[in-house]
Every structure is written in C-alpha cells, then in structure tokens.
C-alpha cells in the first residue's frame, strides 16, 4: 500500500495529539501498533521508490514552485525507515519511566514527524520552518528532567541553533531575490543557468554557515556535547539526537550543495573540514571522563567522517557515507541507551568509577561490546563495511588511506578507554534488566552485527551499490584491526595518562559569545575563501 508522502509527516503528529488523550503507560500496545503500521508504510514507500524512481509530490494541487513540494528519493526513503525503526525502539525502551508522561510522548512523536518531514522536504523555506520547530522541541526535551545544569545547556542549544537558522534564512532571502523560487528542483535549474556566479557566494556562505552549525562541523560543534551529553536529557532523547537528528543537518547540506553543483565548487574545503572535524572530535572524546560526553564528542568525529565521504564526489564514498550514517545511527543509539542504563545502575557518569559491567548486567555489556566493535570497524561488523566503502571512494586522493587509518586509530583509542566499563570486578551483584529494555538493546546489537555481515547485500538493496568483500580482504582487515587494537591499547596504557594536553582540552568550553563569534569567523572565512578560490 503506497500512501502520499505527506502522511509520513502528518500521521505521527496526528497520532501524537491522539495519544495525548491516553494514559501514557497504558497506551503502549497502541503506540507500538501505530509505529509498526508506519514502518510498514515506510517500507512500501521505499519499494515504490526503488521500483519507479523518485517520487515528487506537490501539496494542494498547485503547480510546482507555488505549492510546497515533498520529494522522496532512495536515500530519504531509507532514512525514513531508519527514523521510524529507531523511534519504535526508543518508545519501547523507556515506556515504564516516570518522566514518560503525556507531554513527553506528545513532543517525542511530533519530533518523529518533523524529522521525517526534514528528510522529505524539497523547499528551502519549509526546511527553515521545520528546523525552527524541531529546535524548540529538542530544547524542551533536553531540559525535560529539569536538573539545574541542563537549563544552561538547553538555552545554549536553543540560541546557537536559532542564530544558525537565521543565517540560513537570510541566505534563502538572497537566493529568493535572484531567482524568485525556493523549490529545490526549480532552484537547481535556475542556478545552473545563472550567469553571475560570484553573486551567489554570499547566500551560499550564509546557508553553509547555518548548516555547518546544525551538523556540528569543526569550529562550530561546541553546542553538541552540551546538548547530547547533558545530565538531564533522558537517554532516549540523547540517542535520537545523536543517532538521527544530527544527520538532518548533513542531509540538508547534501541537498543544498547539490543546488550549487557546477557553479560553486567547494568540495575540497569540505574534505579538509570533514577530516579536521573527525580528528578534533576524537581528540576531544579522548580527553573526557564523562561517559555521555565521550559518546557525544565521538558523534562529532563520526559526522566529520560522513562529511568527508559526502564531499569526495565519488559514488562509493557518497553512498558509503550514507550507509555509515545508518550504521552510526544504530550503534550510537545502542551506546547511548546502554550508557543510560549504566548511569542509573552506578549513579555516576565518571568513566573510572564504572567497572564490572559483565558481572552486573551481562546483556548490557554484550550490547556495549557489539556496538564498540561496530563503531571501531571490526571486520564483520557494520562500521567496517561502510568505512571500507568510504575508503575505496577516496583512493584517488594522496594519503587518503593514511587519513582513514588515523581516524580509525583515534576511534579505537577512545573506545579502548570507554571499554574499561567492561573490566572485571567480582564485587558487583547481578542486577536483572527489564524485559523491554533487553529486547531493544538486543535488537539494535543484532542489527549492528547483521548490517556488517550482509553489508554488501544491504547496501546494494538500499542504494543499488556494493563492493564485494572477499575472504582474503577480511583476513587483511582482521590483521590491520588487531594490530591497531594492540597499538591503541599500548598507547592508552602507557602514554595516554602522561600527556597533559588532554587535561587542558577537557577544560575548554566556549561561552555563548564565543560560539557566535566562531560562527561569524566561519562565515567570513567561507565568504573570503569563495571570493579567492571559488567560481
């Protein structure tokens, strides 16, 4: 059954309002039923797109350019399935908690609809509206448990993202002045026929500044750990933010840079920025001792990796980055959920005080281990296949494999550090895990494993692209992986504690004024780069 695209936006919101009437802890079956139905519809949509190509739909029966248009290509169809899959898991994971009340479920389901809308939207002004609304909802969810520290994190998140959205809107305004349309398909045509590319530098720089903050690229990521790692955000909110919401920025970035393709060529600077983001992200992650902050900074690093893949310009790297996006959504949300369980059990967020997870909760430890293997790119796990695709897509650049190796080494070191939660500690008592939570983390861990085992099949099924891996490749990768683990373990054991730099980095925290200043510097830098090298 194929439904119109706007239902993917409207259904969750309508259902959110409807579920506001039901007592939250009673309505679980109904919500799950609704989520499964929505997932089924998303699968149908995906099969339709796969069979008949991109779906474009204009609301209200107006001609294109006047009505709001929604577009579902292969990537967005896959991402919608992912969004609904993750939200279903999250709702099942936490339905028994005290804070899951009427308001929480309302906001959470509305956020689901908004994220779907962001992936479908084909109109720049519409994207702006969706970004603003989802920013407000996310900032309320961040401060939901009302701990006092989180109110500062929430306000920083809200303000910096609103300013980013203003930059974005101003850029759109300039584009509108030149072309008179805001529909992405029409804009792409109009831009390719435009005869004065330097006039587009200013709007491009403004839009990219906004989107770079949204997707937490190199100098503009300081809001992200505050938002994703704040103590008061429930773990399912952190998981959704880090797993899928941050990717909206990347996805819009891809769509916007497609508009300017051929007129403004900035692929190179984004390759550099992606690489820098990836490296700086893991250095910051390595210096933290708070488990949620380690995961949050690590998201920055992985976003850099995806940005790198998306800007390389080859098909393998492009779809590899999207496959990595899906994988990252799965294992990062598993890690956030398990971190949430750990924080509840140990009553601390300090990494060094958490030990003996195997003895306390073997299932949680198993899921953590599987996701760590996934994120560090162990052979047969999903991270390895998507990193392999990105690496294959960038081989035309000099030293690209070295760069990938460095990024991967950084990831491994920070997760060698993180894996100290698995250390043996016999004094811990076994604590039973709730049934719904174990189902969710086992499902996600299984997806992490299967996504790697069947990586080539899945990527060809989703995106029509695959690079077969042979047994000999696996052996080489296994060798490299084991060697990297050994190197990283030695580094962590013997050198890490002696480097004072990490302690200094831990103290770095930008104030709000500095965040806006870095945004402004980024904008100026982008604009001057375009004037000097662009066009």
């Amino acid at each position, binding site marked *: 059954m194929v439904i119109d695209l706007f239902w993917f936006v409207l259904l969750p919101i309508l259902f959110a309002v409807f579920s506001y009437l039901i007592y939250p802890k009673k309505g679980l079956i109904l919500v799950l039923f609704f989520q499964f139905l929505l997932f089924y519809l998303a699968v149908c949509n995906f099969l339709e797109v796969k069979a008949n190509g991109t779906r474009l739909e204009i609301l209200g029966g107006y001609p294109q350019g006047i009505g709001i248009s929604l577009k579902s290509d292969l990537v967005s169809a896959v991402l919608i399935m992912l969004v609904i899959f993750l939200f279903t898991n999250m709702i099942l994971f936490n339905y028994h908690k005290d804070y899951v009340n009427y308001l929480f479920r309302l906001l959470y389901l509305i956020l689901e609809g908004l994220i779907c809308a962001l992936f479908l939207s084909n109109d720049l002004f519409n994207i702006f509206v969706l970004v603003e609304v989802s920013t*407000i909802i996310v900032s309320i969810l961040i401060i939901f448990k009302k701990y006092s520290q989180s109110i500062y994190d929430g*306000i920083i998140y809200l*303000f910096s993202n609103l300013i980013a959205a203003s930059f974005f809107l101003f850029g759109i305004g300039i584009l509108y*002045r030149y072309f008179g349309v805001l529909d992405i398909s029409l804009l792409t045509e109009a831009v390719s026929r435009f005869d004065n590319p330097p006039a587009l530098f200013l709007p491009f720089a403004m839009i990219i500044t906004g989107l770079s903050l949204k997707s937490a690229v190199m100098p503009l990521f300081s809001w992200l750990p505050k938002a994703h790692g704040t103590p008061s955000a429930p773990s399912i909110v952190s998981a959704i933010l880090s797993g899928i919401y941050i990717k909206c920025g990347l996805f819009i970035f891809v769509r916007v840079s497609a508009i300017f393709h051929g007129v403004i060529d900035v692929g190179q600077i984004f390759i550099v920025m992606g690489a820098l983001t990836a490296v700086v992200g893991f250095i910051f992650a390595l210096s933290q001792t708070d488990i949620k902050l380690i995961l949050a900074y690590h998201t920055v690093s992985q976003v850099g990796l995806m940005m790198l893949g998306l800007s390389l310009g080859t098909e393998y790297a492009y779809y590899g980055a999207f496959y990595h996006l899906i994988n990252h959504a799965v294992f990062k949300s598993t890690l956030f959920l398990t971190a949430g369980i750990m924080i509840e059990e140990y009553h601390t967020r300090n990494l060094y005080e958490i030990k003996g997870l195997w003895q306390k909760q073997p299932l949680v430890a198993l899921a953590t281990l599987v996701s760590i293997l996934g994120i560090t790119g162990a052979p047969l796990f999903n991270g390895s296949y998507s990193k392999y695709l990105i690496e294959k897509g960038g081989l035309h650049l000099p030293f690209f494999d070295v760069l990938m190796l460095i990024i991967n080494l950084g990831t491994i070191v920070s997760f060698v550090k993180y894996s100290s939660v698995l250390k043996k500690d016999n004094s811990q008592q076994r604590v039973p895990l709730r049934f719904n939570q174990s189902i969710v983390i086992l499902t996600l861990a299984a997806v992490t494993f299967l996504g790697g085992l069947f990586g080539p099949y899945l990527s060809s099924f989703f995106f029509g692209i695959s690079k077969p891996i042979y047994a000999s490749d696996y052996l080489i990768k296994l060798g490299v992986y084991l060697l990297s683990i050994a190197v990283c373990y030695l580094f962590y054991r013997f050198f890490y504690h002696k480097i004072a730099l990490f302690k200094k980095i831990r103290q770095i925290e930008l104030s709000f004024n500095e965040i*806006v200043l870095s945004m402004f510097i980024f904008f100026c830098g982008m604009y001057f780069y375009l004037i000097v090298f662009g066009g």
Partner: protein
Amino acid sequence: MGMIIAFILFFIAIYGLIARRNIIKAIIAFGIMESAIILYFLGAHHERNAVPPLLLGQIAEGTAIADPLPQALMITSIVIGVSVTAVGLTMFISLYYHYGTTNWLKVAIKRKEEK
C-alpha cells in the same frame, strides 16, 4: 536601500550577540536579526507603484503587481519569531531563578562549579 539597511541591522545584531554578555540583550539582538531578515525579504522584489495582487479583474493592463510570496513567508517567520522569543524568555526566567544572574559568563562559571 531597504536591503542595505537589512544587512546593517543583521550585522549589528551579530555584534550584539558577540559583544554583549547580557542574556536579555542576546534575546533582543535575536529580535533585531529577525526584523532584518523580514525587511530584506519584503524589500527583495519591491517595486514602486505596484498594486496588491487582489481583484485581478480590476487592475489595468500593464500595472505592476506586488510579489505576494515574501509576505506569506514573512508572516510565517514572524509567528515563528514570536514563539521562539517566548521560549527563549521562558528558559531565561528559569535560568535566572537557578543562578540569579543575567550574565553569560557568570552563568557558565556557576554551571561549572555545580558539577
């Protein structure tokens, strides 16, 4: 002209956000930013003597008709701006109850001490 003023206003707002440490002033600067964008959009396709796109039958041939889209967009933008300011102020009030200061830096320092 309107567009140049819009640019100037936008960067004044940016200056306010960078250089002022008062949270209320940051919210005001955000409002200035919002109005700069609205001014820009409305000025973008402005023509002198253009008539509103109403009563199509009664407009003489050759009369310029104003572009209605920016107005529709900006109404949305104004509504969003109002709600965003409201959320920002609400959050500021509860921040003020917690920390008792309107200064970004002092709030950041107190937040650090809390850990």
